[in-house]
């Protein structure tokens, strides 16, 4: 590997400056905010692309911005580093980010606080870029918490609705739980290796079989962090609520970039996970459950964004599955393709919501393909992509995931490989089904709403088209290039044999089946879903009510904890401690009151006391002698 210095700091610097500028200028000129922010984002993309163009797969670009803090042997530099993995992530973040910025200029045009929006959005870009460029765990953590903050701010962007603000708070707090685990991992790594730098850690850990025990614990801690950021069981509850934010935010943060940070982190720390097969087994199980639970929940949601949110949770599960099988490049591959088609889906949903005048309930949509042809076409492409149908982008990555799971050599998991593949395949079928359902409910049939739907402006539809093109060709384009590019950073399993188009189409049977069944159920056989629902009512309700996870957490965690807090305050603080304090005061007060009775205020009494005491003393001494 060759380490070269490069001006990496410029990449996050553009959006940081853009954030401030968009806010200050945007307060005066509303339109300028979007332009400035988009420009900053595009500049970051251009700069990344320029550095990328000069890179080979083995290059590591490095930029030590300044020495951040240091005490004794804990010395932390603000190091930015871009290797092949970082470059891929950086391109995705800045590329998709720029597209979404452009889209937002139209989507948010009528909002009063548009300057705030773009300022936050650029701030998010800044944090996300720090996250992927960070050369050590702490810089990564800066970005990690930074994106959490921006997510909080953007979810609660329309803060006048208290529920939205509460959703933002929930996101931040749940992420914090993960972050605590992440911090624990950092402590352990530093305590044992005296460094937090990725390259130094890798040199110390990679392949050292004596560290299996430690790595198992560290990897578990890091994974707890990842479950928070990347919405896995048990910390996935924030992501569906996060849909309270404006739709471009959902596309950028809660689909394409931030939520994939956990997968990125896992790939970055692959040398730790490689030594922790037990943790990887846990990751597999958690990811599998998440993918399945989220997919089933998505089946019966009526809010178009909620469907996409649960779909995202499910897809993140797919990515973790790939990573847990050791196929990090596949996970990253799915991150990239998912960024393409999920951004397209979310922005398409945004376009629909925009066109239907802020209607999000799919029951009040339908037949929109006539009013919004471009949106429809792009949504269709993205749906086929997420369904995993050849040649769309999702096919290649999903196929690679299944391949990786089939050949998983993890000793704890390997015996059950076929079961896992079966369940994943079924989940993939569900994915195709519920996405087709949302497509059909939104675009087919008759319009059931009361607004006057219209196609979105060029800035929005243009972005949709661009993303649709990526969803169409992205997978095919990256299929061979990505593993070649990433092989020096990540373990790349031997590529599967190239297949003919017919074989590929045959391999997409799951997706095709899901799509066909979905189309049938929600267009011509419209009565069937209701029938199925009434047949399996308990399960249906379970799915519809999101497995009652929120209610469960509320009942076993939040409320008891609040009760305990109140109890501590009232009983321990005010009752016990203050009781003791005030009690000792009262004792002194009372004894004073009693002793006060001896003080008559009569000089004669005092004189008498004095006399008696004198006599007593004299008698005492007389008796003693």
């Amino acid at each position: 590997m060759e380490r070269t210095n490069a001006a990496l700091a410029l990449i996050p610097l553009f959006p940081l400056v853009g954030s401030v500028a968009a806010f200050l200028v945007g307060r005066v000129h509303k339109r300028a905010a979007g332009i400035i922010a988009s420009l900053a984002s595009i500049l970051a993309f251009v700069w990344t692309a320029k550095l990328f163009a000069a890179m080979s797969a083995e290059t590591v670009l490095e930029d030590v911005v300044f020495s951040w803090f240091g005490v004794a042997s804990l010395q932390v530099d603000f190091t930015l580093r871009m290797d092949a993995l970082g470059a891929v992530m950086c391109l995705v973040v800045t590329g998709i980010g720029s597209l979404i910025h452009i889209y937002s200029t139209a989507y948010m045009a009528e909002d009063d606080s548009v300057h705030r929006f773009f300022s936050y959005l650029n701030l998010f870009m800044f944090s996300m870029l720090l996250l992927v460029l960070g050369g050590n765990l702490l810089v990564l953590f800066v970005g990690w918490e930074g994106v959490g903050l921006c997510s909080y701010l953007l979810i609660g962007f329309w803060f006048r609705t208290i529920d939205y603000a509460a959703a933002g708070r929930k996101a931040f707090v749940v992420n914090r739980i993960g972050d605590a685990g992440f911090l624990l991992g950092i402590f352990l790594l530093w305590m044992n290796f005296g460094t937090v730098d990725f390259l130094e850690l890798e040199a110390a850990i990679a392949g050292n079989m004596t560290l299996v025990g430690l790595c198992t614990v560290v990897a578990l801690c890091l994974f707890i962090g990842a479950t928070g950021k990347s919405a896995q069981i048990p910390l996935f509850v924030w992501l569906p609520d996060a849909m309270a934010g404006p739709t471009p935010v959902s596309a950028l943060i809660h689909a394409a970039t931030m939520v994939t940070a956990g997968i990125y982190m896992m790939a970055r720390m692959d040398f730790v996970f490689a030594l922790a097969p037990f943790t990887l087994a846990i990751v597999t199980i958690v990811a599998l459950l998440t993918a399945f639970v989220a997919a089933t929940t998505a089946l019966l949601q009526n809010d178009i964004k909620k469907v996409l949110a649960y779909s995202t949770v499910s897809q993140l599960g797919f990515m973790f599955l790939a990573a847990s099988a050791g196929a990090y490049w596949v996970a990253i591959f799915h991150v990239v393709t998912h960024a393409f088609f999920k951004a397209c889906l979310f922005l398409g949903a945004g376009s629909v919501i925009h066109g239907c005048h802020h209607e999000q309930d799919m029951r009040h949509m339908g037949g929109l393909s006539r009013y919004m042809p471009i949106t429809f076409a792009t949504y269709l492409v993205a749906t086929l992509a997420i369904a995993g149908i050849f040649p769309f982008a999702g096919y290649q990555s999903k196929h690679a995931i299944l391949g990786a799971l089939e050949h998983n050599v993890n000793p704890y998991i390997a015996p059950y490989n076929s079961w896992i593949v079966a369940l994943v395949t079924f989940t993939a079928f569900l994915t195709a089904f519920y996405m087709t359902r949302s497509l059909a409910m939104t675009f087919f049939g008759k319009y059931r709403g009361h607004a006057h739907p219209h196609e979105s402006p060029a800035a929005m539809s243009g972005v949709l088209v661009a993303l649709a093109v990526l969803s169409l060709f992205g997978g095919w384009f990256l299929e061979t290039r990505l593993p070649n590019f990433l092989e020096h950073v990540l373990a790349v399993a031997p590529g599967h044999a190239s297949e003919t188009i017919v074989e590929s189409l045959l391999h997409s049977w799951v997706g095709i089946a899901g799509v066909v069944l979905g189309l049938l159920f929600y267009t011509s056989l419209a009565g069937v879903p209701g029938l199925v629902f009434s047949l399996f009512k308990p399960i249906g309700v379970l799915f519809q009510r999101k497995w009652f996870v929120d209610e469960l957490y509320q009942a076993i965690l939040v409320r008891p904890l609040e009760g305990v807090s109140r109890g501590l305050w009232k009983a321990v603080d005010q009752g016990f401690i203050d009781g003791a304090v005030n009690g000792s005061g009262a004792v002194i007060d009372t004894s004073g009151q009693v002793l006060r009775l001896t003080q008559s205020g009569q000089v004669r009494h005092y004189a008498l006391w004095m006399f008696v005491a004198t006599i007593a003393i004299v008698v005492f001494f007389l008796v003693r002698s």
Partner: protein
Amino acid sequence: MIPVSFYLTLAALMFTIGVCGVAIRRNVIVVFMCIELMLNAVNLSMVAFSRTVGNLDGQIGVFFVMVVAAAEAAIGLGIIIALFRSTRSLESSEASELRR
């Protein structure tokens, strides 16, 4: 020559009268006089001792006591007058405001 015990007995009687007066009487002036009586009882015993022992130490002490008694009389009477002005009475039991 009268034995010293006679003087001492007289002094003890005078002192006891003084103590009882201070303890029992309410009139401030009488209390004050009783204090003087106690002082003079002490003076008497000191003079008596002085003569018995044969040096002047005791008599010197008496002078000090007399000087202090005179000063005390001046201040004490001043206080009594001030007290009388404010309470219109010479009852010592009336002067217990400081307790409150």
